């Protein structure tokens, strides 16, 4: 699991005020792989995900120790622009959160801000929607409000919006927990496709989903990384008893 690391986390501790939410985490995420983060509620999965694109900066009183290298560069170094990091490391949230704008502008908004010129926008919007497998469903209603789309469509729109920023990494926090099985299957299918070009890190409470779509799985428990291994290994013969108890649904 050493080769091809796009992100390396080295001895990271993370605090909300005085409360430590992550303890001495060291791990690497491999390029063009899907990595699943699993573990009981409150174990720190979302916290870790937000650390990777400096979203925790937006929360008052937080503190990071250790380093997180993205392609060799410490993203918490003083000279690093968090906005640039967030462009390269995009995020999709649990609840679809489209802007109250047209479908077109949901996608075009970010690229416009980063200076993509108007002539290239149409192509970028189309390409992003196609990548997110939403194009056929929305191509004739681009000027309608995104708020009228179904939950599954909104989530794919949010993925398209993230992709339009041309990120290297896509972080997804329970992206299908609010979706029906068909929409979920579409997003999972999409993740399979996307990993050719992107590195994907996904938080999920759905064990079968983690088993289906990820290459590697990390199990967290109360802020600690308990086991990190190939997904197949984690779901057939985990090395740590705690992992086994969790994924087989045994209580402590």
């Amino acid at each position, binding site marked *: 699991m050493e080769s091809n690391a796009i992100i390396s986390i080295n001895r990271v501790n993370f605090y909300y005020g005085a409360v430590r939410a992550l303890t001495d985490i060291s791990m690497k995420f491999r390029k063009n792989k899907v990595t699943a983060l699993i573990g009981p509620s409150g174990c720190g999965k979302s916290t870790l995900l937000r650390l990777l694109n400096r979203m925790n900066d937006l929360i008052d009183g937080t503190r990071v120790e250790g380093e997180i290298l993205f392609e060799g560069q410490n993203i918490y170094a003083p000279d690093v622009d968090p906005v640039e990091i967030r462009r390269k490391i995009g995020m999709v949230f649990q609840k679809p959160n489209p802007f109250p704008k047209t479908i077109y502008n949901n996608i075009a908004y970010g690229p416009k801000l980063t200076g993509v010129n108007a002539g290239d926008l149409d192509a970028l919007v189309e390409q992003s929607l196609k990548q997110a497998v939403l194009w056929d469903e929305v191509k004739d209603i681009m000027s309608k409000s995104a708020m009228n789309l179904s939950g599954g469509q909104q989530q794919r729109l949010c993925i398209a919006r993230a992709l339009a920023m041309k990120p290297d990494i896509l972080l997804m926090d329970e992206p299908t927990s609010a979706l029906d099985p068909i929409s979920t299957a579409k997003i999972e299918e999409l993740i399979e496709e996307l990993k050719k070009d992107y590195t994907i890190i996904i938080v999920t409470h759905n064990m079968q989903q983690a088993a289906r779509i990820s290459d590697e799985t990390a199990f967290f428990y109360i802020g600690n990384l308990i086991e990190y291994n190939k997904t197949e290994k*984690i779901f057939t013969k985990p090395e740590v008893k705690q992992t086994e108890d969790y994924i087989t649904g045994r209580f402590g």
Partner: protein
Amino acid sequence: MEEKRHTSLHYEKELQAIKDGIIYLGALTETAIRKAMKSLSDRDTELARSVIRDDDEIDRLDTDLEERCIKILALRQPTAIDLRFITTAIKITGHLERIGDMAVNIAEKAMQLNEEPQLKPYIDLPRMADLVGGMIKDSLDSFVKSDLDQAEKVRRVEQVIDDLNEQIFRELLTFMMEDSKNIHRALLVMQVSKNMERIADHAKGIADMVTYMVTGECVRHRTCNMLE
């Protein structure tokens, strides 16, 4: 299946019921072997018939257990130890069903042999029957207790059975060479011995699955590597 329990008690009960079913099925096959052997040594054709009749129950239980395992796979989508437990259970029930068939084969040979004068006193065959009965018991014990040592013991006894089978073959060959009138009966006895040897193979198969269940490693064939 040790210390911690599933959050879902229904699931816990389903898994326990599979375990119980396999133990019961194992007991039926042990009885079948014992009776088949007895029908031969006591020249009791009626007992042999009962072995053949009772095999229907073994087949029925095998199908029932397999269906329940498949249902758990479909509905519970087990992982890790639960997944290895269920796949092991499916394999074990298949082995036990085949063992039942071998007991039937032995009973059928006994019926034929009982029609003719006894070729020789049976000494090694009852020993084999005891040993393979013990192998089945030990292999299922190792399954219930996740006991690797006991599984290893089953593999050792399998060697002993192989040797016994060869010894019986050699002995019967001399009978055949002595007098061609012995050939038919000697061949039937050989088949009984061969069936015992195959039962031992199945018991070893069960032990190998237990090793897989506990360690995640496949020991059935040296080249096979299920998880790597």
